[in-house]
Structure formats: structure tokens, C-alpha cells
């Protein structure tokens, strides 16, 4: 599966670090807001 403009972005729920704490984050959490979701290869590199 891949992503296309004009279509719903794939839903996800992932473990995350939010302000220093471990939390679960889902795409749904961002309904009502714009979201800039970006991927990068590895921690300790640049983004």
C-alpha cells in the first residue's frame, strides 16, 4: 500500500516519546488539525 494525495492517509497507532514520556500516538489524535508527519532514517542522524 502507498499514499496518494487526495486520499485518506493510512491510520496508525505507535509507541512514541512525547515531551519525555512514553505514550501511544495515533493518526486519529490529530483530527481537526493539520499534521506534518515526517519520516527520517535513524536517530542520531539529521532530519
Amino acid at each position, binding site marked *: *500500500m*502507498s*499514499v*496518494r*494525495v*487526495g*486520499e*485518506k*492517509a*493510512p*491510520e*496508525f497507532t*505507535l*509507541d*512514541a*516519546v*512525547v*515531551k*519525555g514520556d*512514553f*505514550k501511544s*500516538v495515533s*493518526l*486519529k489524535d*490529530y*483530527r*481537526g*488539525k*493539520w*499534521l*506534518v*508527519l*515526517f*519520516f*527520517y*532514517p*535513524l*536517530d*542520531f542522524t*539529521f*532530519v
Partner: protein
Amino acid sequence: MSEFEQRNAAVAAVSTDSKFSHKAWLATPRKKGGIEGCKYPLLADFTKKVSADYGVLQEASGVAVRGLFLINPDGVTEAILVNNLPIGRNVDEVLRLLDAFQEHQKNGVVCPIGWAKGKEAINPAQAAAWFEKHAK
């Protein structure tokens, strides 16, 4: 980050690292290559499923390439920018895209090449007038 907040936008970063690696990176000072003080969430796609779903998983290395997805408040993808591994991103371009999509949403106009906030956009019903004024 306030530039994004002003635009009702959140930022979230994803890699295939574990949440523990994220935590260590967040605790590392900038001068040591860390991102201490970073305010947006770091998501751990440890199973690589989300990276694959978004089409940014590089199979050979098992990491995600530098893909950026601008998702609107209804969960629809509006823009996709993907760079191969060596090249970083440009925050100004992301803000420009946000401005352009929001201008379109608010006023129904479309934003031509090079449009930025403050420039005249095109009213599709009166496109001829725009070209008359701006075309060289």
C-alpha cells in the same frame, strides 16, 4: 514550532528506531548530535509497518527515507515530499504549502507556481484576469 501552531498544525516524526532509542536521542545535547529540547513527538515504527504503508520503507536497509506528508484536519493527504537519504528538508517549503492549502480552503482560490503568502492567488472563475495581470 510556533510557526506551525499559528497555522493550526502539529508536527510528528517517525523512524524505525525503538522508543528507547528516541528517548536517548531526546536526552542528548544538540552539540553532541542529539535533539534535546525537541518539542514534537517522536514515533517508533519498530515493526516498520507504518513506513511500508506510507511507501517510504527502503527494503535493503530497513530504514525509512526522508518522506514528509501534509495531512489535513480530515485525515486526507494533501502533499507528499520524499527525499532520498542524503538530503534534508526545507521547513520554509512546508510552511508555504500549509499557507497555500489554507488559502485555498478559506477563499477557494488556487495557488500557482511560486505562490507564497501575500502574493495574489488565482480565482478559478476569473483566471483570465489573473493571467492578464501577471503573465509575462
